[in-house]
């Protein structure tokens, strides 16, 4: 993010003007209220406020970091207070040193300094809080604008890409091959055919309903994925082995519906489709700090000459959805090995609230 003051010329001008006014005010007060000579009043006013002006600009960086971090409110306040104290101490020493170097009557200045040092600290604290407030307002405004634009982008994508998304979510190959398997089972094993029809119906229902932006729980998402994998298992039999290890505390975690679907479709496409041997698709989910880490791994036949064609579109889809939903708080990592392919997704842990 850019610096709120430095990024625009007009804001920089206002910033400078504010400090000129403050410097003038201070010089006038020192001269007329305290009664010191003009030289000292002017020197003290200019140097005090010039230093604070620069420190105030620099304070943006730690302040932004502290305010946009994920910590508790208490630790944020503590950090802000620490930053402020550090800035004010720095400012006091630098001011004293510089003004003392400039003025002629050094003893007079020492005396003046000790008399007003508490006023000075109070003013410093006050100004610091004004600056924090301004930065805070700026940050929230920016965040809100970002959120709004993300929301708008999301809506646009949902609207324009609804069909495209659906097509990406349910691979027509999968659909028609499953229908063919069912057609076969109606002749050879009608009970199993019925079971498969029910599974496919449930899966279709889930994927159609997940088109809206309403997040779903990991539990729901996994139920649908199990349906999907079970349907594929009817087609591929022993060639497909499904393993799962999901921490129970991850189950209520919320995520956008059908987010994980492309990962499994990829695993089937590049694992099972390309292999004549057994392929294991293994899912794990763990809670780590404030995040949920979901990992999907499939074994690959090391002898298969992988056709890279089409690879990556599904993952790109997942990545862009993560970005739209979570901004920079989510992460996707791909780990390709000789005999396995792994995708790891990290999303902030958010639980369903009962509303």
């Amino acid at each position: 993010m850019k610096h709120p003051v430095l990024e625009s010329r007009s804001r920089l001008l206002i910033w400078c003007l504010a400090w000129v006014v403050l410097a003038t005010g201070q010089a006038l007060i020192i001269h007329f209220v305290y009664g010191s000579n003009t030289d000292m009043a002017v020197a003290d006013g200019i140097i005090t406020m010039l230093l604070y002006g620069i420190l105030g600009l620099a304070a943006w960086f730690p302040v932004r970091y502290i305010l946009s971090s994920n910590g508790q409110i208490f630790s944020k306040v503590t950090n802000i207070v620490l930053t402020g104290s550090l800035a004010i101490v720095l400012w006091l020493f630098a001011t004293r040193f510089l003004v003392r170097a400039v003025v002629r009557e050094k003893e007079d200045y020492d005396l003046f300094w000790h008399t007003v040092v508490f006023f000075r600290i109070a003013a410093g604290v006050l100004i610091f809080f004004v600056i924090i407030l301004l930065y805070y307002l700026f940050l929230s405004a920016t965040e809100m604008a970002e959120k709004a634009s993300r929301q708008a982008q999301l809506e646009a994508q949902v609207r324009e890409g609804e069909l495209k998304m659906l097509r990406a979510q349910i691979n027509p190959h999968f659909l028609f091959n499953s229908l063919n398997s069912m057609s076969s089972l109606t002749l050879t094993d009608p009970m199993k055919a019925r079971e498969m029809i029910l599974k496919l119906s449930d899966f279709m229902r889930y994927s159609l309903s997940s088109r809206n932006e309403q997040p779903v729980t990991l539990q729901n998402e996994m139920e649908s994925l199990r349906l999907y994998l079970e349907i594929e298992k009817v087609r591929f039999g022993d060639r497909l082995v499904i393993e799962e290890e999901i921490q129970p505390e991850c189950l209520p975690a919320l995520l956008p519906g059908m987010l994980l679907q492309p990962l499994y479709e990829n695993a089937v496409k590049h694992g099972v489709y390309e292999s004549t041997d057994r392929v294991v698709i293994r899912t794990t989910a763990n809670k780590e700090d404030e995040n949920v880490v979901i990992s999907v791994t499939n074994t690959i036949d090391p002898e298969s000459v992988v056709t890279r064609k089409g690879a990556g579109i599904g993952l790109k889809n997942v990545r862009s959805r993560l970005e739209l939903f979570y901004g920079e708080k989510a992460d996707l990592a791909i780990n390709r090995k000789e005999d396995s392919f792994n995708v790891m997704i990290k999303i902030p842990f958010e639980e369903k609230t009962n509303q």
Partner: protein
Amino acid sequence: MKKIRVLIIEDEAPARELIKYMLRDHPDIEVAGECADGFCGAREIKEKHPDLIFLDIQMPKLTGFELLEVLDEKPEVIFTTAFDQYAIRAFELNAVDYLLKPYSKERFDDALSKAVSRIGKEKGEPAMIEKLVATATEAEGYLTRIVFRKGAGIKIIPLNLISYLAAEDDYVMIYYNEGKALKPKTMKYYEDHLPPSLFMRVHRSYMVNIEHITRLEPYSKDNYVAVLKSGEKIPVSRAGYKMLREKLSF
């Protein structure tokens, strides 16, 4: 009467079961074998000489199209495939029969009787399958690997292992990390079907994998040679040199 022998090449068990089930009504037909992948298919065709094969297109290791490419004797083929608009277009352009999954018994019987009526007759156009494969790959984009026969087996070479191609009369010799292979294709075919981001026709008779080039050396006036990682040297024409310059921006 001699029975018609069919081979089912299909990677999904339920799909194989369906074909077998539908063949029950045809006492004149005998299932000679079943295969779950293309390698098995190639082997079984060689051993059992079926009259007709049911061939799935999407299979592990070797696709249905690639399997046909490496066959010497080509039995009658009925393709079976799920939704695939490109493949369908390819089929429609050609007379080979296909079954679109899921299919009805009537459609199945129809395709079967058409295929049976062709068995033993002079094959109309031997280049038909070739044309079909070409149309299908054209519609699906560039090749990602090249398949050929090696001894009794089949070799699948991914593009990154291929260093260059050289024209040899009506054939193209493909040089890869472990040797070379002759394909009954033209340079023009490979120029059209290999990704231009990787392969460049640097000479009338040569196409080179640009990732294998280590350096270019002047050879004579206006002529260059490309030195490959393997140490081999490939002639580069003036036009080829210009193209390489643009591509590799030096």
